[in-house]
């Protein structure tokens, strides 16, 4: 905790140094350029309470003789009913770039977050807004408490010499062509603790991609035939961080309250990868390889907690003891991913075509046994998964007199091989052989690009959708206002009984209001 406080004070001092001279450009102190932003986000709730927070199991047998599911409000909430807010957050994010000479530079990204949701909304208990219950959580370089989080999000050193580039430290690594779809962009896990990653989609994973400790080495290979042919090697020696989920009881909790999951993260497991990129004629390409512990992992049954002894009941002491609670263990087996991407400048059509594909021969899944709607994950199995994204981007003049509309279209197919009977993924969702997803993105600037009208739509052919219309208003140099609305529907509304443990996300329908002051 002392280290956490020291970090917080250090950040506050840096912030104080940055503010006074922010009227023009980034602040410069010696070799350091400091930029950043303060952001206030409000996400009111408009639907119902998140059922994951008050779903119980009963010993009273249900269909098939297995425990029946009950609604037992207030469950993990303090008060029953729809909460007022899903998120109310303040964030201060700094980018400190220091260049010492042509060869050496350093980048630091400290970030402070104050989650006020449960202060503003009495429906919630004092859940941990930033849970880190896994071994190796120190790798995150973060500290704080239930509401406050201070993090040295990125900290890396760059060395450039001739054709070599070396980056060492805690960093984000993003690969691939697709936007918002994780096909090649899987080097870093995601931090879904705050709002499950349904922020403004145009910012993709920047705020939620978890920077990890990597050595990243690039060498541009001199040759006369393939411009910019570059080999890249990445190594995380074993500081493993899994995907991070919201705490149970949090507004965006995706784990039903009758489950207790223990994240079994083995430190020392390296992440190793590489890619080759270059340009041939009008085509830019990459060939990629990555092996790492799986981010989300797969769950297996661990125990049924005996009742009524503390802490046997998942909801204890929220509800009277006596309701069963299932303990699962989340394991993160190693996966091997090979893939590649290409893009092509289709000049005649004014469009860029993109293709991205990966094969994971050993993706982990949970194999379930047991009857009815409440089977038990008993072991982890491997299945081959092939993902392919086709995309096209084309600016188009749609409305006379206005700037062109940026239009992006993506098609993702996920093919999972082998026997998928009673197989579920890391989120607890049933696995289909082929899953098809379309995404569309429109961005129409108006008023000389001061205001952007945006629309994102994700459609699953298995009847699910996520729509996000939004407006972004740029006011001068420092102020940005965002208003967007998340709307989930279709198969995403399936009750828990049909997709064990999954999030049926329509509780998250609602607007986001966001004020940003940058400097």
């Amino acid at each position, binding site marked *: 905790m002392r280290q956490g406080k020291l970090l917080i004070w250090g950040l506050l001092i840096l912030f104080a140094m940055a503010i006074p001279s922010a009227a023009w450009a980034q602040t410069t102190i010696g070799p350091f350029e400091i930029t950043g932003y303060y952001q206030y986000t409000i996400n009111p709730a408009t639907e119902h309470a998140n059922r994951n927070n008050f779903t119980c199991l009963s010993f009273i047998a249900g269909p098939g003789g297995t425990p029946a599911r009950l609604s037992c409000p207030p469950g993990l909430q303090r008060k029953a009913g729809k909460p007022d807010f899903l998120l109310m957050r303040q964030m201060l994010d700094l980018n400190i770039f220091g260049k010492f000479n042509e060869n050496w530079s350093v980048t630091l990204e400290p970030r402070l977050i104050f989650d006020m949701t449960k202060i503003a909304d009495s429906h919630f208990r004092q859940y941990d807004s930033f849970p880190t219950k896994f071994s190796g959580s120190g790798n995150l370089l973060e500290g704080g408490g239930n509401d406050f989080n201070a993090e040295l999000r990125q900290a890396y050193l760059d060395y450039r010499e001739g054709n070599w580039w070396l980056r060492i430290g805690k960093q984000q690594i993003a690969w691939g062509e697709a936007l918002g779809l994780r096909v090649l962009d899987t080097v870093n896990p995601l931090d879904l603790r705050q709002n499950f990653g349904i922020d403004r989609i145009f910012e993709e994973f920047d705020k939620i991609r978890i920077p990890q400790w990597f050595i990243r080495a690039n060498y541009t290979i001199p040759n006369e035939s393939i411009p910019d042919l570059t080999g890249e090697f990445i190594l995380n020696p074993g500081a493993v961080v899994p995907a991070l989920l919201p705490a149970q009881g949090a507004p965006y909790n995706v784990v039903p309250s009758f489950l207790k999951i223990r994240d079994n993260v083995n430190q020392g497991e390296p992440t190793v990868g590489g890619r080759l*990129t270059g340009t041939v004629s009008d085509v830019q390409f990459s060939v990629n390889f990555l092996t790492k512990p799986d981010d989300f992992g797969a769950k297996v049954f661990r125990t049924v907690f005996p009742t009524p002894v503390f802490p046997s009941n998942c909801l204890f002491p929220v509800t009277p003891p006596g309701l069963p609670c299932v303990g699962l263990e989340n394991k993160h087996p190693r996966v091997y991913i090979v893939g590649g991407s290409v893009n092509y400048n289709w000049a005649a059509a004014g469009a860029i075509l993109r293709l991205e594909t990966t094969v994971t021969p050993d993706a982990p899944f949970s194999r379930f046994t047991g009857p009815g709607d409440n089977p038990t994950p008993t072991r982890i199995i491997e299945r081959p998964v092939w993902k392919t994204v086709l995309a096209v981007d084309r600016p188009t003049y749609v409305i006379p007199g206005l700037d062109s509309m940026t239009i992006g279209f993506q098609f993702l197919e996920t093919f999972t091989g082998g026997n998928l009977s009673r197989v579920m993924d890391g989120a607890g969702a049933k696995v289909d052989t082929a899953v098809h997803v379309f995404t569309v993105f429109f961005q129409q600037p108006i008023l000389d690009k001061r205001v952007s009208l945006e629309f994102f739509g994700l459609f699953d052919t298995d009847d699910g959708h996520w729509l996000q219309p939004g407006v972004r208003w740029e006011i001068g140099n420092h102020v940005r206002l965002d208003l967007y609305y998340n709307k989930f529907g279709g198969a995403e509304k399936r009750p828990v009984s049909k997709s064990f443990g999954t999030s049926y996300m329509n509780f998250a329908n609602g607007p986001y209001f966001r004020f940003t002051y940058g400097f």
Partner: protein
Amino acid sequence: MKEPKYEELNYFAHWTRRGFLKRAGAWAGAGLLQPVLSLIGSGKSIAAAYPDEVLSIEKYTKGRVKPGMVISKDDADLVKDIAPEGLIVELQRGGQIKIAETDLRPDAVNPKFWVEATLRNKGQAILDKNGQLWHKDGKPWIGGAPFPEPKTALEAVWNYKFNPRRYDDLRVISKVIGIDSNGSVLRRDGAIYMQIQTVGRLVVDPKPILPKYKDEIHRTLLSLTEPFDVYGLAVASTIYYDAAKLPDTDLYIPTLRRTRRVPSTQRFESASPYSTYYTTDLDLQNDPVLTWSWKLEGRKPMLAPSASNIGARAKGGTKEDFIFPPSDEKFPRSTWELRPEMLLVDGVPHLPGANYSRKRLYIDGIYQRSQMADIWDMAGKLWKFFVFLTGKTGRSDNAGAEAVDLTGIVFADLQRDYHSNVNFYDKVGDIDFRVNANLTIEDWITSSAMLRRARR
């Protein structure tokens, strides 16, 4: 293209000596008493090439305008016949310019090595049937202005566009202020701009061509430093030697943490809120030469910015100096002079989304360089006026002389009465202004280079 007759040119009265020479010799067809180039080549003053009347604004205006005068809205009419239309609008709205003597140095706004190459390579440039520029041996042009005595609009445009900044490579630092009709500052943008010439290289080895990039004419990199939400955004453009082909564009987008190839078709829309210029307007004319059609509308003496406008490079400069000092004012003051021969070149875009009916480039007949443009909307109404000021920078050009380059820009949207005023600086953070500095494409303007130099 049919050349306008001498009589059609918009000179003032009493050109007896010129009229005589027109009948007597070929040079007068271009309004010259003798060829400028041979005078430059022999180290003589180019004054001998022009009638005295066009070398002195006092004589030219019959004493109504003299060097040292400040022209404002009260007396803008005095220069109405020798100024771009946009400048008159600017003056009538509050702009002020100071009049200077005509500068007769051929290298006032061009590097000396460029002028020497122009002389050395004269007569070796050809245009193919499509208007594409080549060296007579079928290879890309080898440097300097290819047509030092341009007879067509296309030749004049190639003189400027082949290498608008004249250097083999350069890196500049700019800050843009967006100002509305009330004079309020709306936005400040900062950028680092780089250009690396791949053909027609004159100073930095390998010369004249980078073999690996022989199909390109140059690459550019625009790296944004402010405001905060574009800090670190970089735009790399590959401009092809084939002047009918649109550039290729790659971005480094900090939010995405990776580079992304994007279409290059959004050329007629502002790059950022409040800005009055489009991608097509950078360097006054940023689209490949053959994506527009060009017509020479005339040659005449005209006002143009003086090389004395050194902007932010003047230590302690104030607005009283009329050198385009950095300021938040809507109309930064600058100094102008009468140029004896200005080519009026009208361009019409043939690109999707083009919302200009016409752009007039004013190309100096001595410098073969454009510093001003008027732009009309699709209804034929004057829309924009741009001024690119060029002067000494105080830095070496690494070819034995002091570098001359852009010192300021005014992008004026005359219909909205908005301005984007640009100043250039010697240094910001760790980046400094430099030319012919052996900046390489591999180090700076590739996807992998953008990634490894990302500031965020």
